[in-house]
């Protein structure tokens, strides 16, 4: 199965990348954008999707500083 894992900084932890992009958008004329956060998308083919949470906990994300979300595959 093709799976996607979204990893994002935990709420409340300073995200300087998100802040930098948030400041850059108005400079291009894109007003009204807030709460920009930048994370990571991991795509992978897995034989046993049941093991994805464990993969996330142990390697793909650092649960101390990041939240992850497993997004269904496209077959």
């Amino acid at each position, binding site marked *: 199965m093709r799976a996607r894992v979204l990893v994002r900084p935990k709420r409340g932890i*300073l995200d*300087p990348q998100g802040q930098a992009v948030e400041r850059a958008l108005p400079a291009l004329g894109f007003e009204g954008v807030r709460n920009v956060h930048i994370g990571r998308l991991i795509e992978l083919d897995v034989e046993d999707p049941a093991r994805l949470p464990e993969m996330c906990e142990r*390697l793909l994300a*650092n649960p101390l*500083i990041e939240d992850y979300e497993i997004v269904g595959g496209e077959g």
Partner: protein
Amino acid sequence: MKFGVVRFPGSCDDVDALDAATLVGDAVPLWHAERDLKGVEAVVVPGGFSYGDYLRAGAIARFAPVMEDVIEFAHEGGLVLGICNGFQVLCEAGLLPGALLPNASLRFVCRQVELEVLDPDTSFTRACARGQRLSVPVKHTTGRYYSPDPVHALLRYAPGQNPNGSQDDIAGVCNEQGNVFGLMPHPEHAVDPLTGSTDGLRIFESIRAEIDDRVVA
């Protein structure tokens, strides 16, 4: 006494760590792919970009074969010092609390900083005095320390000198048992008057003194 300095693909401060350790004892490199600590009495996990720092700094190195032995060594009370990337590896390995995040400035910082010794009563700081200032360089992009829980900080950046946005100006923390210590600044780069400061030697001298005491005991 004998230090071991881990060498991962991408380590770059291993040679300076070996040189610094050699000023207070003997030192041998420990190859990442070998499960052999060569009978060393203290392990240094050095700075660099282990395994390219892919995914997160230290995330892949944490699974290197030698790390299984380092983790076992630490659980048995062995002294483990992680410097910069080594600090990141030890956090990822769960030997130290917390994590290192990208600098608040998003920039690589390379400069001499003043550190304050918060606790001189540990295996890694016993050659220092409480409140003593140490002049040691930092050079990193991912050095912003964060922990959701209270931690035992041994060193902090002097007021106004926090280079990375680290929580509570923390520069170095140890585990609850006091035998694993990680810091972002580089004591191994401050051991020769040629580079302006020898304050980094205090960390290596502390480890030496601790091991000498253990042997006598």
